[in-house]
């Protein structure tokens, strides 16, 4: 965990020290943006942001190795148990909404998939290797899959909440990485490729990717800030969180400063990092959770 600097609490916002953040690669750009904006106000707060994936982040977080864990899904039961065992108490703060985006190579003549087709495509039993097998109207083009690693919340979300197979797994004949940029590169560089990741990565790479609209029974819906906030982009809209260690928040002025800054400037940060900001209600919830933490 981070250790407080010697001159902690040196008046004003002069907190110093290091903050270790790890976890979701989806949330990473946002936490990085927060740290970058903070450093312009207070360069003495040193934040390191990793992207081990949500699961990987919780593993180290629950051992007390990090101060904050980014997550693209809520903490799971076994992780709760691990944190208890590790003596780490935490507070969950929602920081943004995500429209999990299914992206394909820009030249692929496919625009929309139904939820069933998603399951057929990514499910563990899937034998689909050509787009035309999914739908005869799709082109005769071999499929290459690029999906997040098994430590990632995005993987978990797709496996547990969308595909919803008992095994909670996805098919294995895929290229996988915890680094979403690798997925972006793979999809944009391989004809017939498909994959999925947080909306931010799509928005940053719109030129080289094509996002598929998703038909959950109510017609094809494109991923966007509006459709996600309005709850129309189902089943792929999801909340994004940071989990803050209570002990670190109390003892490490740097953590406190970082988290306070994060929540206070949430909308600015989200916009700068091309995330979908929280609705007003959700923002209020986050603020009150932070107040609970401070007291």
């Amino acid at each position: 965990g981070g250790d407080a600097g010697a001159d902690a609490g040196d008046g004003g916002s002069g907190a110093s020290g290091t903050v270790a953040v790890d976890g979701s690669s989806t949330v990473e750009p946002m936490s990085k943006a927060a740290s970058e904006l903070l450093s312009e106000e207070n360069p003495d707060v040193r934040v390191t942001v990793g992207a081990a994936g949500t699961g990987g982040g919780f593993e180290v977080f629950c051992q007390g190795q990090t101060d904050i864990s980014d997550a693209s899904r809520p903490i799971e039961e076994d992780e709760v148990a691990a944190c208890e065992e590790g003596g780490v108490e935490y507070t969950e703060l929602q920081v943004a909404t995500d429209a999990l985006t299914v992206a394909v190579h820009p030249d692929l003549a496919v625009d929309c998939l139904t939820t069933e087709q998603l399951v057929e495509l990514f499910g563990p039993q899937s034998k689909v290797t050509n787009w035309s097998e999914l739908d005869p109207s799709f082109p005769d083009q071999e499929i290459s899959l690029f999906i997040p690693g098994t430590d990632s919340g995005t993987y978990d979300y797709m496996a547990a909440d969308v595909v919803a197979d008992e095994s909670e797994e996805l098919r294995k004949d895929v290229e996988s990485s915890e680094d979403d940029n690798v997925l972006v590169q793979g999809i944009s560089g391989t004809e017939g490729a498909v994959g999925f990741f947080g909306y931010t990565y799509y928005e940053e790479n719109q030129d080289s990717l094509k996002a598929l609209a998703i038909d959950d029974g109510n017609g094809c819906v494109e991923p966007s800030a509006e459709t996600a906030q309005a709850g129309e982009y189902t089943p792929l809209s999801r909340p994004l969180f940071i989990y803050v260690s209570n002990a670190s928040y109390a003892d490490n002025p740097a953590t406190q400063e970082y988290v306070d800054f994060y929540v206070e400037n949430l909308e600015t940060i989200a916009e700068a990092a091309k995330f979908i900001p929280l609705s007003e209600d959700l923002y209020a919830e986050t603020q009150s959770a932070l107040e609970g933490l401070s007291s």
Partner: protein
Amino acid sequence: MSHNNNAGAGPSLGAGLPGAPISLGRKPRPVESAIKAALFVSAMLSVAITIGILVALVEPVIHFFAEVPVGDFFSFDEGTRYAVFPLITATMVTTVIALVVAVPLGLGAAMYLSEYASRRARKYLKPTVELLAGVPSVVYGFFAVMFVTPTLLQDVLGLGVGFTNALAAGLVLGVMIIPTIASLAEDAFSAVPQSLRQGSFAMGANRMQTTLRVVLPAALSGVAAAIVLGLSRAVGETMIVTLAAGSQRNLSLNPLEGMQTMTGFMATTAGGENPVGSTSYNTLFAVGLTLFAITFVINMISIALVRRYRQAY
């Protein structure tokens, strides 16, 4: 201690030390002994490192096999999470491509340097070739991803390769090990006695015939050592294959496909910050130990070959 006993009527002993007794007794030299001990310890450290590598690798591996059945690890099934053979075959594919590139080019460069270049030219050409070994592997990896795959393979050659593929990784890997092979092979060629070349020229052979028919066969074990060492480098190289070969566990011999090598697996897994003691952390060590064992055997072969050619003359 005996002294000179009237050894003659001449002046006293020791020209410069009139009358000084001759004492040849051993003097204690504590500083000398301490320094020698310290130097010995430093040298033994290298052995300690090897033992350290083994212990450091073996301990987590024991934990690993407590959790993962041995059969799962030594499995060809790319769907099995811990299967190592798909990684090994991927390493083999990239390594073979690298050798196909580097062996002819490395030996060619070595032949030129040792048999054709003048002493002066060699002085400048050899460091130039060795510069290739100085380029960081992450740079080569970047080059493979940004240039070799999109520009060379996809645009120029029109190959239907994906963004990651073993071919680009192998090609760039090959370029990287050219200097390793060239340098050691050049040593081996230079060690061939001049008298053999003279013998050949005196028979009316030209330079090419001398090089190919006399020097090359005479240096064969050294050349083999060079190739084996290049092989070891290719097997252990990480960044190029991590970036360019991909991260898909893929049991395939098709170089146009993406596949994950042993080192590629280790780099991506470590990037995932696995907490100490977790199974995926221990996998790292299981694969690392496998890699170490493979390169160790290869290196010993290379060392034995070098010894053979050093002894030949």
